[in-house]
């Protein structure tokens, strides 16, 4: 089974948490927690097991961010979520060398949260114009800039 295969492949990385998820409740088969520095290795491992990157985003928790990576597989149902706690104002290693598709997702996270991605080939804003100086999905963002 793919779930066991991923678990076995992730075992040598000494991650914080690799546990079965509650699929009926959350939609995850596998829940993983990793350190930010481990993320490129985790991504490489998941790519080697044939998983694709479904989504990449961040959640602003005030003191810190949680980076959230969703992976799924084309042939077998197994959604893996990877959470990485990221203290502010630290940056995140980029996984765009592993998954070229992460390039745009990371640009979006940079655009919306201002999180810097080390090793990203082209870290520019993607949705907002280059001229703005705010990151709108931060909880500290006041909202309407025209108010």
């Amino acid at each position, binding site marked *: 089974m793919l779930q066991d295969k991923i678990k076995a492949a992730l075992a040598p990385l000494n991650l914080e948490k690799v546990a079965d998820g509650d699929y009926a409740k*959350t939609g995850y088969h596998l829940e993983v927690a990793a350190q930010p520095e481990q993320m490129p290795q985790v991504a490489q491992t998941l790519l080697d097991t044939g998983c694709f990157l479904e*989504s990449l*985003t961040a959640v602003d928790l005030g003191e810190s961010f949680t980076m959230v990576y969703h992976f799924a597989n084309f042939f077998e149902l197994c959604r893996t979520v990877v959470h990485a706690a990221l203290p502010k104002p630290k940056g995140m290693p980029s996984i765009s060398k592993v998954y*070229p*598709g992460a390039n745009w997702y990371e640009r979006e996270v940079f655009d919306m949260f201002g999180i810097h991605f080390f090793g990203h080939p082209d870290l520019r804003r*993607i949705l907002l114009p280059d001229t703005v100086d705010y990151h709108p*999905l931060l909880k500290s963002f006041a909202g309407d800039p025209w108010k």
Partner: protein
Amino acid sequence: MEMITRGIEEKTYTLNLGPQHPSTHGVLRVLLEMDGEFITKADPDIGYGHRAHEHMAENRNYHQFLPNLGRLDYLHALAYNHGYCMAVEKLIGVAPPERAEFIRVITNELNRIASHLLWFGAYLLDLGAFTPFLYCFDDRENILDLLERVTGSRLTYCYYRFGGVPLDIDDDFIAGARAFVKRLRSRWSDYDNLVTKNVIFIHRTKDVGVVTKDQCLQYGLTGPMLRGSGIPYDIRKVEPYSAYPLFDFEIPVGQNGDIFDRYMVRLAEMEQSLRIIEQALDKLPNGPIMAEKVPKRVKPAEGEVYQAVEAARGEFGCYIVSQGDIKPYRIKLRVPCFANLSVFPELAVDTLVADLVAILGSIDLVIPEIDR
């Protein structure tokens, strides 16, 4: 002397395509670096239609966010309604009754056909064929009339609610849907004769814009972009939801991953959707259309949920983080075209501008969905 050296160095030039260009389907701008007639680098510039949906979600309660979903991918709005409603239903532990699930499937598939028909017409318009557009809009109009009966709108639907649907379908809708299935079936041969067997169309699309299986994996492509390359990944089958496991249908796949295969996949998908609608109408159960215990004030417990559904363009994923408040703490909308367009710079290299337009159209872009 200076003039001559400059001439040698500047072998390439920049061409600006869009944002107001009919072939970019909305407001997409592509910066092209051209070597003569060939493209050496393409850089899509998105965000012209950014309306901050994710930020809006954090500032309103769960019910108030419902109308936003129809304004992402307005062509297949019901799939987005569905994904969001299912995600919230999971959070609050409510399951819609069987009849509501059937109605959701029927309306969803009708909407999918409408979306594919619009792509079919608009795409051939991109390639310079005007007639197919008139045929498929004639057909699509029937779907819009049907959906208007139950949802109240012809575009940007907001029809599903947490725990079911607010309005039941009536006998006229059922009769109309059956008539439409029959009508569209009789049209396939016209479409084939008009387009599929058209030599110009075949030359424009065969072996152009080939997406490899490796690219699918690396970029996380979904939908017809992926299935055109021969990977049978359809969330309705792989991760069955709603009433889809009850119906018999197939996942059409291509072989080469070129534009022609994507075209064939979409045409075949419409036929499969017709099959689903037919079966759902036959098996439609009686009963309530709304779950009994749906809280008026949605206030889920702390937690998070990811729900994926198959939209016309690929996987729509709704990721909700709740912190026990009446407002969602964070909503991430994973939209298919964002990933599907990110592979475009790789596809565009060494093609002609005319082919570039053909490739862009074959991704089936809906810009408001990419920009959110």
